[in-house]
């Protein structure tokens, strides 16, 4: 089909090919819609809802990353309702997840004047760092469950199917089947998951060690057993002594 669809976004008219998402249509005329779980090279599932927009005639807000443009559609990307919704999502994320290494989300916080202390009663998600191999660590205290790592581990790239969601509700976390260590799974250590992680929850081991204050020299002098196991205890005991 070559016929184009015409819609208006924030009072601007735009013509797009059928099948185009609202997000891409807005991008064509320079209107930026915030995204977190969306990634150009992953399948979109509309998980995080930060990209919601108001569509006239629609009862609920529509996620722009998966909502398709249609003929005559009237979209508003920054109404009060949209802003409130986005702000609330950001505030809820901030209440339970460590976003210290997610500069993109922090920018949104400022942009939407999110109050990071809005939910003081919220329980922080603080699982300990999973450090079960020499190549990368998984710090799910920083995980916002965007699902991108699971997608690239599966049909979006690698077809390895080593990780998925585990548990339910608040306890939901990305994990391996039967909570096996990564080397014991079908993981091929391609690190596609690291490549798409928006919050640095997944991190190469040497970067992690560097962040934990080890010098290049100290890192490269670690023995095989140290980099596989002992470093974890060393680091967690260092963290403990700091807290004390």
């Amino acid at each position: 089909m070559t016929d184009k669809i015409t819609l208006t976004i924030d009072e601007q008219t735009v013509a797009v090919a059928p099948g185009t998402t609202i997000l891409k249509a807005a991008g064509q005329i320079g209107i930026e819609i915030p995204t977190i779980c969306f990634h150009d090279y992953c399948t979109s599932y509309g998980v995080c809802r930060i990209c919601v927009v108001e569509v006239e005639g629609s009862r609920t807000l529509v996620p722009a990353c998966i909502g398709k443009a249609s003929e005559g559609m009237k979209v508003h990307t920054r109404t009060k309702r949209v802003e409130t919704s986005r702000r609330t999502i950001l505030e809820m994320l901030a209440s339970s997840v460590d976003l210290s290494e997610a500069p993109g989300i922090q920018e949104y916080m400022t942009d939407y004047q999110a109050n990071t202390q809005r939910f003081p009663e919220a329980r922080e998600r603080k699982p300990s760092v999973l450090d079960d191999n020499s190549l990368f660590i998984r710090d799910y205290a920083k995980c916002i469950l965007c699902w991108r790592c699971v997608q690239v581990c599966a049909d979006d790239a690698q077809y390895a199917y080593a990780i998925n969601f585990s548990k339910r509700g608040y306890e939901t976390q990305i994990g391996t089947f039967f909570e096996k260590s990564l080397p014991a799974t079908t993981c091929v250590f391609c690190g596609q998951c690291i490549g798409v992680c928006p919050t640095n929850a997944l991190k190469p081991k040497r970067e992690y060690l560097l962040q934990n204050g080890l010098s290049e020299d100290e890192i490269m002098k670690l023995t095989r057993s140290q980099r596989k196991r002992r470093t974890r205890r060393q680091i967690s005991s260092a963290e403990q002594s700091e807290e004390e």
Partner: protein
Amino acid sequence: MTQSDRIVSTTCPFCGVGCNLELHIKEDFIYRVTSPFDGVVNQGNLCIKGRFGYDFVYNKRRITTPMIRKTRQQPGERTQAFDLSEWQPVSWEEAMEYTVDRLVEIYQRDGSHAMAVYCCAKATNEDNYLLQKLFRSEFRSNNIDHCARLCHAASVVALQMAIGSSAMSNTASEVVDSDVFIVTGSNTTESHPIISLQMKAAIKKHGAKLIVIDPRRIEMVDYAALWLPEKPGTDVVVYSAMAHVILKEKLYNQKFIDERTENFEEFAKSMEKFTPEYAESISGVDRNLIVQAARMYATAKTAAIYWALGVSEHINGTANALSLINLTLLTGHIGRRGTGLNPLRGQNNVQGASDCGAMPWHYPGYMSVADEENAQKWEQAWNIEPGGLSRQLGLSTTEILGAVGPGGVRALYIMGENPMMSEPNLNHARQKMEQLEFIAAQDLFINESTSFADVFLPATSWAEKEGTFTNTDRRVQRVRQAIPPVGQARADWQIICDLAKRIEKRLGRPNSAFWDYKHPSEILEEMGSVVKDYAGVKYNRIEEVGLQTPVWDDQHPGTPFLFSESFPHGLGKFHPLTYHLSAEMPDAEYPLILTTGRVLEHWHGGTLTRNSWMDDLYPEALMEINPVDAASLGLNDRDPARVSSRRGTIVLRVHVTPKVNPGVVFIPFFYGPAAANLLTNDALDPQAKIPEYKVSAVRVTPARYEELPQPEVAQRRGRY
């Protein structure tokens, strides 16, 4: 959060896919590797090696000071020196002068034929061009080769014979445009991981059908419509039986045969004997599978063939590759997107090293050294007196070691290769190394080969130098210096130029072949001035995206797929074929067939990957053996076993798995302490001189734990 000082774009130093990398660096420490999602080669995807495998750069075992052996080595009594106490650290000046003294002494005493060099499929185009230039222009020797001889020599020879080219005809990512594709002799998920992702996507998302023809139940079989589990060494029979079916059922492309090929009649006659029944009796593949595979390939709109060393590393290697080419010519599946003959090259720059003339029979650009006109062109380019360059074909990799001895090869210069892991029949190779009069090693680590050297010249890694690699689909891409040289290491091209100038002066050559390059870009331009495929490859054109050769001039856009109109030979030539047994067949004494290959975590001889943290995930070689064979030998999974061939013995753990068929065992060849190549056969394909790595007869018996090189048990992996 770690803030990078800089992010440097470069090309992966491991396999031939040539993935685009971004190195994140803080205080000269590479702490993270990413890849741009809009990258043409790998679309943001990497494998374990590209993502994590670069830490060999910082390994504490790396040699970063020039060294000379403390004890002068005598031919016949040469030893390996793994311990640093046996080496004397010296200045670059001293190391260079020593190297020149020894090389020139041997050259002036014994002549050109005493000199030999192993170039390097891991080094850049510029490094390889210069090293072959040095040996050709100064020592007048064509004893120049590199490990391409050990991987795709048979494919190159066959492609040259049939169509006059020797590279992948199409771009790997075009597989999504194939309706049907054959993967044979390639464990793609482990050896070319990113191409395997494109293959999986082609199947899962674009409806392509895959035919796997391989003795092992490799991971790609999970995605295949058909799997033809042939016995190792029977490729000619299987592919020719497919041709037989296509001929018999008239599924061939008459128009293509008429317009684009020659020698059809003679070829068709030679295929008569290859009935599916005959093929089944030889290869063990069900005749119906052969018929189905033939129909599927022949009737597809677009069909491609991808192969690797399982096809070429046989004494029948050239015939194996020719039988694939025959299939393609028969069906006309070439010269369009999503079709083609696609030998997957193993190393980051094996295509480039070959293009750059790191070969005994060819100058850069596959120009035969025996051709007078070619020799004159290079004499002109290198300021050499007319008739100065040798017109004699040089010795190939395995022949170089074979020729070591009085009156033969006396001096060997090794850049980055590890023949003491990669040659077949290593006990024989060892004797030859011991007999050399002089060995110079230009490398990063003391490995099984450089430990034999008299002088060690510490080279920079790929992250410390500028240059280009040419990947498996002929794309010339930039390699960029990301960090300063570690220690006193120097870039290979600089070491070679320094050495060449000293040799030139010592020999009193009247004219200089020219070694005063300011930047590697000038080296590539010099080559492009003679080699027309590279004429338009200029650094300023490949800053963002690499160009696919041939690139005829500065305006030429490069060539994603070849042969749309004609072949370099004009017509493609069918070759009649016959089947010969592998050189060594199993018998009562050595009842199993050993075949060798790679694993995901390691790369070739393992000089780089055994010095990376990746090694933690696969620290020792395991021998795959079928449960039936294991049971009859009383072996359980991970038990130690002794494996012997007529040439050597190793002890390693077994992995009991139906991935290999009964009667066949598989050992990856990266592992020094139990090197698979101690067992392999050095019988050569008569045309391509490639050794038969993929078939040797072995005997397996249980061993004791204390005989294992690494008795402590390694962590179990889910995927092995």
